[in-house]
């Protein structure tokens, strides 16, 4: 029996599709339960990764932890789950918050994993770092507010010069007012 080449290719393609579909079908939707505790020097993030449907811990899932910063995410560590589905990482206790209220937004991300579909879970911890913005800087050359001596100097100079300009404009008005004056001698 003669098998045509194109039939072989079609069969191979169908087999590939079946394999891919089957592989994707094996991935599970997972759930990450994030808890934050702290000791004297570190915050500890603990993540429990479970199957979203059965609640059974998932093994061999690589989770990456991030903290939200102003212009992106800061990586603070990653780990792969064992049979308990529990992993943890730490970050310094004086980590500044992700926002001006002092909230540290922690993210746990799963990406390109064979066991679990991509997912992101977040939790919030309170920062123990005091924002310097809460203590306003003294007025200075490099601070938000100019020092008094600079303000006085700047406005005095500018005011003085513009004052003289306006006086000269006033003199022009006087020139105009003094036309046809009997006491004014025409030279």
């Amino acid at each position, binding site marked *: 029996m003669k098998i045509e080449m194109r039939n072989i290719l079609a069969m191979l393609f169908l087999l590939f599709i079946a394999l891919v579909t089957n592989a994707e079908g094996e991935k599970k939707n997972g759930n990450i339960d994030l808890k934050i505790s702290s000791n004297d020097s570190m915050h500890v993030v603990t993540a429990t990764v479970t199957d979203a449907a059965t609640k059974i811990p998932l093994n061999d899932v690589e989770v990456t932890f991030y903290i939200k910063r102003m212009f992106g995410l800061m990586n603070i560590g990653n780990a792969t789950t064992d049979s308990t589905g529990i992993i943890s990482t730490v970050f310094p206790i004086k980590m500044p918050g992700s926002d001006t209220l002092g909230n540290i937004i922690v993210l746990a991300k799963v990406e390109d994993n064979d066991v679990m579909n991509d997912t992101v879970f977040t939790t919030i911890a309170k920062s123990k770092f005091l924002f310097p913005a809460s203590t306003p800087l003294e007025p200075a050359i490099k601070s938000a507010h100019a020092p008094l001596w600079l303000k006085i100097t700047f406005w005095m100079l500018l005011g003085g010069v513009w004052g003289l300009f306006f006086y000269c404009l006033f003199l*022009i008005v006087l020139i105009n007012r*003094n036309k046809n004056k009997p006491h004014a001698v025409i030279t």
Partner: protein
Amino acid sequence: MNSDLIREERHQIEAELLSTVGRRYKKEKLVITVLSLIAIAGIIAWIVQLREGLIVTAMRDYVSWGIYISLLFFFVGISLIGALVSCALRFSGATWRYPLTRIAEAITLSAVFFAGFMPVLDMGRPERLYFLITHGRIQSPILWDIAAIVTYLFGSLIFFYLPLIPDAALMRDRLTNMPAWKRKLYKMMAAGWEGNYLQRKFLNRGIKIMSVVILPVAISVHTVSAWLISMTMRAGWNTSIMGPYFVFGALMAGCAIMIIMMSILRNGYNLQHYLSHTHFSKLAVLLLALTCTYLYFNINKYGVPAYKMQGDEKELLNDLLLGRHAVLFWVTQIFGLIIPIIMLSFQKIRNSIRWVVFVSWLVLICALVNRYIIVIPNMMHPFIPIQGAPAGYATYFPTLIEWLVSAAAMAGFVLVMILLFKAFPIVTIWETEEGVEKAGDEAIGLENMNVKVNVLKNEN
């Protein structure tokens, strides 16, 4: 001096100087057409820049100030000539300045207007200039610069207008064949001038005050422009010499453009009696003194760090003295300073208007290139080089858009000058008359006046 002769000479001065008002300059149509086309091309280029953003320029992460800011420094520089002629020469008692004051003030007015415009051209979002007023920090040299330029522009307007009042009255009374709107304008500008005692008193007081005030304002404009760059920590800029370096560079460029402008107006309007050899020769001496001073500043600015060749200055100086900017640097030093100094040292050259004008062109062009040298190479040598930036980000060559916009600014500068001299006498009539009465023709630099009278009589 005989009073009849003075009256006759006054009559001649008024007739000759008033005749320039509204008169067509030689090849005026051609000049105005070319300049207007350049200005229109520049406006179109600016619209493209506003629509597309600064990406259409060559300005990137390294060189964020290009030829627009170089031109800002150039325009601010040449604007100092008004202060030099109207104030410094006034207080030094130089009587020959009388016929020159209006030309100097017109250069100042036009230059400072475009100086104020250059930072706007440099901005990708010019409407944000409004935030400088609402959110400006008094500590920032940018705020000082804008404040100084606006103050100088307003002051220059007043200083241009004050000595114009008696001349406007003359135009109101004599130029009766002008169109109605022009007569109305001159009447308004004359501010009821009759030349009576009180009016003269107020006018002299105003001019005296402005002469005193405008000098520190003019110096502050250029000093603050220097502070814009010298208050940063960049190599080459981080030096206390920048203020005086800019001021003297400005005076030198201003003096050069004054000579060039005088020569153009002298030939174009046949003002040989009023803008005479004496004026060119005196200004040549002034230019010589200023180029010498500027060379001295250059030796200090570049020579001292070049002797040490240390730290962050080393790379910049290598670039300037031997590297990719060496040709421009040495051209400015040799053709802009050393050759002019040598040439102007000879009295024969100082007495020749052609040679003085030639040297002035050398000085002016090199002063323009020097502004480029001051800004661009320094920006190419930041303390912390940018990591992983595309190769083109570390180089700078202006794009066509930048060339067009900059050329339009230059064309606009000349067009404003033409407009001013179309509407008003080039030489201040009443001051020239006053100078003749007080000091005589020779002292204020007028030449062959009586010969001219005879010629006119013979012609009649």
